[in-house]
């Protein structure tokens, strides 16, 4: 797999130092990662065959700094507006997975004019009492594959990021990555997005693993019902990481969606 370009983007005179991975040519597409952190994976790599993929790391995750300057979700949405400005993307396609999907939806609801197309892959952000979202930080590490994958013993299980348990520094970095995301979804991943989803104007594709045990597919129906004109694509043989368990299928669906001619009335 070819390696992407890695750069460090600074905002507000260095308060934020953000690692950004970039690869490919074509129409730009910004990818926001989920709770496991930012990794250049086969999904991003295949998207980069026909698009310019720009993947910023969440503040506080991995090598990226500035978490202390985004105290709440409102700060985070404003931060992304600034980041997209710095990246020269006043309006773009947003693809978000899990927590990144929630952030992408918040951006699209707050600033509809900034988002041309929206792809939400198993986003968090809603809550149903009949499908309580499990506590991702409250399960033993060896139970994570069955929470995240349709096939917990398959090849993708080996790809899940797992810090070396004997390396305290690696454990700390992994904990801080998770902490930087928990900061916006603790103790339950419902921060009021359901009240704001009606504002999303971008054509929206929802991608959901049929076997998602973290965000039950019922949430896909809720997102689809709340975002006018959105389309829900259920992916068989996939859990919470459909882009990794069924990469080709998801790449094909995402590519076809983002390459469609813009519907009338949108920019």
């Amino acid at each position, binding site marked *: 797999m070819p390696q992407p370009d890695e750069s460090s983007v600074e905002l507000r005179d260095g308060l934020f130092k953000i690692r950004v991975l970039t690869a490919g040519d074509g129409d730009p597409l910004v990818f926001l990662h989920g709770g496991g952190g930012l990794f250049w994976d086969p999904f991003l790599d295949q998207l980069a065959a026909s698009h310019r993929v720009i993947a910023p790391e969440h503040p506080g995750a991995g090598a990226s700094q500035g978490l202390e300057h985004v105290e709440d979700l409102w700060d985070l949405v404003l931060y992304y507006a600034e980041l997209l400005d710095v990246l020269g993307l006043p309006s773009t396609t947003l693809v978000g997975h899990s927590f990144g999907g929630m952030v992408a939806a918040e951006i699209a609801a707050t600033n509809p004019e900034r988002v041309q197309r929206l792809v939400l892959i198993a986003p968090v952000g809603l809550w149903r009492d009949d499908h309580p979202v499990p506590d991702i930080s*409250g399960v033993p590490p060896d139970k994570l594959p069955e929470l995240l994958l349709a096939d917990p013993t398959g090849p993708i299980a080996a790809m899940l990021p797992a810090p070396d348990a004997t390396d*305290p520094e690696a454990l*700390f970095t992994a904990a*801080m990555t998770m902490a*930087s995301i*928990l*900061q916006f979804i*603790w103790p339950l991943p419902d921060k009021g997005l359901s009240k704001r989803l009606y504002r999303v104007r971008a054509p929206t594709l929802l991608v959901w693993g049929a076997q998602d045990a973290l965000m039950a597919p019922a949430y896909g129906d809720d997102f689809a019902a709340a975002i006018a004109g959105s389309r829900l694509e259920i992916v068989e043989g996939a859990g919470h990481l459909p882009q990794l368990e069924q990469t080709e299928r998801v790449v094909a669906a995402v590519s076809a969606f983002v390459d469609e001619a813009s519907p009338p009335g949108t920019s």
Partner: protein
Amino acid sequence: MPKGDHVKSIFFHLMPYRDLPSDFEQRYESVWVTPPNAELCDPVKVAQYYQWNLDELELADRLGFDGLGVNEHHQNAYGFMASPNLMAAALARRTSNNSALLVLGNTLALYQPALRVAEEFAMLDCLSQGRLAAGFPVGTSMDVNRCYGITPTETRPRFYEAHDLIMKAWTEPGPFPYNGRFNKLRYVNPWPQPLQKPHPPVWLAGGGSVETYEMAVANDYTYSFLSFFGYQFAKKVMDGFWETADQLGSDGNPYQAGFAQQICVSETDAKAEEDYLEHVLYFFNKCLHIPPYYFETPGYRTRRSSEFAIKANRPADIAQALVMEKNWKSLVDNGLIIAGSPDTVADRLIEACKGLRVGNLIALLQIGSMPHGLTEQNLTLFANEVMPRIRGLWESEGWKHRWWPQGARQDDPVPHTS
């Protein structure tokens, strides 16, 4: 040098559930956060426990203990004193021998507005005629993040802000506005302010976080290490405290420090094993049955403290204590318990207090499933035969205990208000 103050012996009660099923640790994930209440926690039993717990604390007062300790935990079978202030209020009225009431403490980050803590502690101080020591713990990740839903990365910011608000509420004349990040109040004006002036002594409890060391020294508070692993495992944490204290110019007064120790006293060493082994094993096997992923929710510990903990090998030490084969010999040899005849116990406590340089012994004398009668025996033997032997430990160095509640101190009582 003038004769110094004597070592303070504090009977600290965790108020555990004493009747967990024998296969608890095999059947359930955790003693904390998730042990199912309707299945495991019988309110009829709890009603009996509360009577015993308070009877035991009141007995300790009559026996001459210097202080009585209570603390706050939530959804936890080893100690479910969700409101230590309720227990302290009950004790304030029934402890005629004037022991100090050490509430160690209220978990500040849990209360919005934290003004509530300022109010309840001030009430307790008045109710007890100035016998309150006000404990300000950061709290465990289980309590703060899991049971009360505080965002892990906000744990310390909320703690510091609550501390700031409470100290202002106690020492500055009200009403005044307070514009914090988490506490926004137009009128801060608690009735009453505390009886002790300028405020009740503040006791911090820590587990080795460097920020807490510094806060204790910078504000002239006490620092106590409240662990269940005993004095040998406490060594690194207390050495860390004294190292920080030394760097910040502290005078090294041992009464600024305390540590918790599980203690079992019988007539002889052999009798102690016979009396207490079952209950001590109940504690270590069931009451500390906590999965590692609950211990530190990501974001609970700061980068600075994580780096410090890694340097001090803290995670490895705790892991070692947790996985250690628990039998009478290993628990005694590694200092997790100090047990035996009064002579044996006194000798080891003197060694422990000297080694850690502490003047406040937080004595855990009701352990796990220990029944009421045996707890009374432990308290009585400790008070009559151990306490007198350890009291004078620091006297020759001449230290004054500046952190003991004014109303509990015989030589400098607060004037009664009636």
